[in-house]
């Protein structure tokens, strides 16, 4: 476990040793603020609710999370440092988990910084804090799932751009399917509903913490991390 922590700390530090970490977090905050204020017109509508924010956040995460995760394994392969890391007495799971938590920490930091939105709103009107807390929890679970997908994508390539595109492709498709459910035939709709990250997220955002939704997210996270470990491990197969 201390290996995981060592890798976590190194990875988190490396995000902020270079401008990348700062730039990506800032870009996210600017983007989500724009979407929330301008596109969903929350101040025009006059209702003290974060519905607009929670509507758009999953979409902007499809851009923001892959930007954060794209370097996690791809960069190490490109630099050759993966060889240094993997030949140390650490297990592949420790490497993947350490990097997963570091990526998640960066996203979580950005999400925590958006607390300024509900805090601002609460000055203007009555905010349903229950659903706000639920929404943020759902958002963190969604983010964790996206990070796992992004890490898996990064494990498949040594090119960061390809890693970004694969991760964005998967998360965006999942987001899109969720939005298209009303247009789907009745037979297919329930299946897509179950697969869609968005559905489970909106359940939680309503303030309802259903174990099925938690199970969905955890299964997805574990499955993607498992595939990332397999990808690392494959070099040791005959």
């Amino acid at each position, binding site marked *: 476990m201390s290996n995981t922590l060592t890798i976590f700390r*190194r990875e988190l530090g490396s995000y902020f*040793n270079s401008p990348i970490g700062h730039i990506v977090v800032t870009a996210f905050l600017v983007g989500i603020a724009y979407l929330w204020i301008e596109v969903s017109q929350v101040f025009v509508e006059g209702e003290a609710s974060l519905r607009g924010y929670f509507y758009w956040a999953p979409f902007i995460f499809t851009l923001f999370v892959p930007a954060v995760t794209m370097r996690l394994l791809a960069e190490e392969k490109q630099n050759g440092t993966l*060889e240094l890391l993997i*030949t*140390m007495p650490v297990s592949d799971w420790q490497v993947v988990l350490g990097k997963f938590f570091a990526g998640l920490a960066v996203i979580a930091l950005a999400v925590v910084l958006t607390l300024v939105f509900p805090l601002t709103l609460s000055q203007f009107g009555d905010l349903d804090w229950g659903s706000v807390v639920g929404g943020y929890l759902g958002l963190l679970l969604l983010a964790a799932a996206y990070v796992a997908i992004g890490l898996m994508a990064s494990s498949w390539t040594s090119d960061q751009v390809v890693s970004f595109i694969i991760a964005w492709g998967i998360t965006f498709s999942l987001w899109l399917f969720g939005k298209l459910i009303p247009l789907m035939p009745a037979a297919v709709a329930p299946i897509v509903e179950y697969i869609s990250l968005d559905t489970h997220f909106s359940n939680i955002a309503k303030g309802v913490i259903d174990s099925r939704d938690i199970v969905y997210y955890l299964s997805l996270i574990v499955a993607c991390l498992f595939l990332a470990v397999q990808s690392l491990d494959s*070099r*040791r197969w005959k």
Partner: protein
Amino acid sequence: MTTTEAVIRVEKLTKRYGAKEAIRGISFDVPGGQVLGFIGPNGAGKTTTMKILTCFIAPTSGSAQVAGLDISAHSLEVRRKIGYLPEDTPLYHDLTVLEFLQFAAALRQVDPERRRDRIRSASDVCGLGGVMAQRVGELSKGYRQRVGLAQALIHDPPILILDEPTSGLDPNQIVEIRELIKEIGREKTVILSSHILPIVEATCGRIILIHRGELIADGTIDDVVREHGEERVFLRLADGAPAEQVLDRLGGVEHVKGCRAADDGYLLALEGRDGDDLRADIHGCVKDNGWTLLMLESRSTGLEDVFRKLTAQGPEADQM
């Protein structure tokens, strides 16, 4: 560690990538305390062999044991026993030297109480005292190489595996690293690969020559040169000596195996002379024939000549 038991045992190691065989049937043992040099042309399979020993990749067939542990079954323990510096010395450029060594010490399972001492010890041995606060990316190549060596030593492993530890260094830096390796080699088992033969000659007690995936020479440098090299004498005569006659007469001297014109003179290959200096006999032959001698010297083949002979691609291999 001064035992002479084999600490590394490699048996019929083969690695295939699709249809291409990177290494084929390589077998050797390394006793404790030895400094072994892998030499061979680029692409011969030296790096592949090292990546297998350090558990970075798995062999297609064959087996290897490090300190008695099988590399597949006990990968984690094997990795604890080895300090590895991969080719091109990959490091984390955004960390300071101290941060990097702390990271390496932690992942290489150095006890938390011993970490500060181990870091100080490794940085002393590698001469990093003055640069601990600098970022790795800002260091010169020579210093980065030292950082790479330091991280390989940080956990005081019994075995060091260094892939091209001097690549890209200037001649001064090469000497420094070479001396460092000699110092380290006094107490540890070291495998290093290089295609710069003088480094290998200066530091290694034994060499293994790998070519096109196969092991084609194995032994001390002297043994390998003696087995694959040749004793030669070079002769230069004043103008006027008829070529065919010279070849004919010199070939007649006992122990002279062959003679060919080269380099404005004649190169004689010798055989079976058991340490006798044949130059006196050759000189006698020259005098008897009334020729004027300009130069007569021994030229035994060295490691480089043996290397080129054994790894040459074609007709060259048949010439002396």
